[in-house]
């Protein structure tokens, strides 16, 4: 077991790792049963910290959750469970947090579209985030990327690296991903905008590491531009610097 990775177990169960570290630690977990044991114990410990914060939710939450649940199809079991004594080392680490969406998603795509999806790193989204979010995001994102009128453009930015924008006029949306932009200091962030004749609105913040996405920008219409600016950490309500990139839609 590598010491530097091992030291990440605590931060991992507190969801305090950066994404690249989370990924590499999860890969490490798959073949480190000692780490898996430690993670299990620390996760239970973190749960105690959480239980100490128990608060009665607002009463309206219950009927909403129950109604939503009964409209929602449940996931089938994973189906490759094996006997407990072998499970530890053979089942993928943190399997129970994951949903194997990728194959099903892939099956729904035309081959050409799949290439685009993979190029954009959508498979990362699917495995990295929580299943529900991933599904929602990737469903919408895949609709845009696989739309018959989808247009893909990869543009270099003045902050280095490239940004890929897939636009579908029919879906009125764009999918944006960035790679290789220079890392920003902690006090700054990249912010994504839709800039149109009617004004500029924030889509959200992008990782200051310069690698981000795919991110969905909805409500995009012809005449809009997709822009990225460098802003103070936390973002701003309108751009304060010259965009490092502005792609006409």
């Amino acid at each position: 077991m590598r010491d530097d990775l091992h030291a990440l177990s605590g931060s991992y169960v507190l969801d305090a790792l950066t994404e690249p570290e989370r990924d590499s630690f999860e890969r490490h977990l798959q073949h480190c049963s000692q780490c898996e044991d430690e993670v299990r114990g620390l996760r239970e410990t973190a749960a105690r910290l959480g239980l100490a914060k128990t608060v009665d939710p607002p009463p309206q939450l219950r009927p909403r959750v129950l109604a939503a649940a009964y409209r929602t199809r449940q996931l089938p079991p994973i189906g490759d469970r094996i006997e407990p004594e072998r499970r530890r080392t053979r089942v993928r680490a943190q399997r129970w947090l994951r949903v194997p969406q990728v194959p099903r998603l892939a099956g729904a795509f035309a081959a050409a579209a799949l290439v685009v999806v993979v190029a954009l790193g959508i498979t990362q989204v699917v495995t990295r985030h929580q299943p529900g979010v991933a599904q929602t995001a990737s469903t919408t994102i895949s609709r845009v990327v696989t739309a018959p009128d989808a247009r893909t453009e990869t543009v270099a930015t003045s902050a280095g690296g490239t940004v890929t924008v897939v636009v579908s006029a029919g879906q009125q949306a764009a999918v944006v991903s960035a790679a290789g932009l220079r890392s920003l200091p902690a006090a700054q962030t990249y912010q994504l905008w839709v800039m149109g004749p009617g004004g500029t609105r924030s889509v959200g913040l992008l990782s200051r590491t310069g690698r981000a996405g795919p991110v969905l920008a909805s409500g995009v219409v012809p005449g809009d531009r997709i822009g990225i600016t460098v802003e103070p950490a936390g973002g701003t309500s309108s751009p304060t610097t010259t965009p490092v990139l502005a792609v006409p839609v």
Partner: protein
Amino acid sequence: MRRTAIRQLRPDPGPAEDTDRDPDLPGLLAQVARGDHRAFELLYGELAGPVYGVVRQVLRDPAQSEEVAQEVLLEIWRAASRYDPAKGSPAAWALTIAHRRAVDRVRSESASSRREEKAAPDLSEAPDDVADVVATTLDGQRVRRCLDGLTELQRESIKLAYYGGYSYPQVAQLLGVALGTVKTRIRDGLIRMRDCLGVAW
């Protein structure tokens, strides 16, 4: 309807009205995985408070917390068949989903600016906040006592990361210590908490 943490982790027989149901959480989850509505209602009673509490602690904003808690509880319904008892307790499974979802929300584009404006200053009050809520349950009192047994750096690192939803580089920056120091303090602190609480998994 606040339940004690002990009940959630080591369930005892449920109230009389539920005698026709298996009151233990793994059993309930198995029933939920088969689409049992009544079991999900019982499970909601057990997990909604902890889930909402964790999400609220991290996000602060009540409306946003409610939204995320709903997503998490729905996810528990949807993914009940994926719960694996060999990997941990149902409460840990649920709270892992809740915490990660809340942290994802914090770090995701749209939420971060809103939250930082509204909630970041609150964090300085976290210790008292913890003490207040924690004192309300027996298990909570143990959590409090065990937190008190940590070094200050361990305690603050863990609170900022778990309750604050900060990444460890952000924790390092807030505390003005090296990255490696925070990593090891978080791990050492959690190990000490685990042993202090007698967590056996």
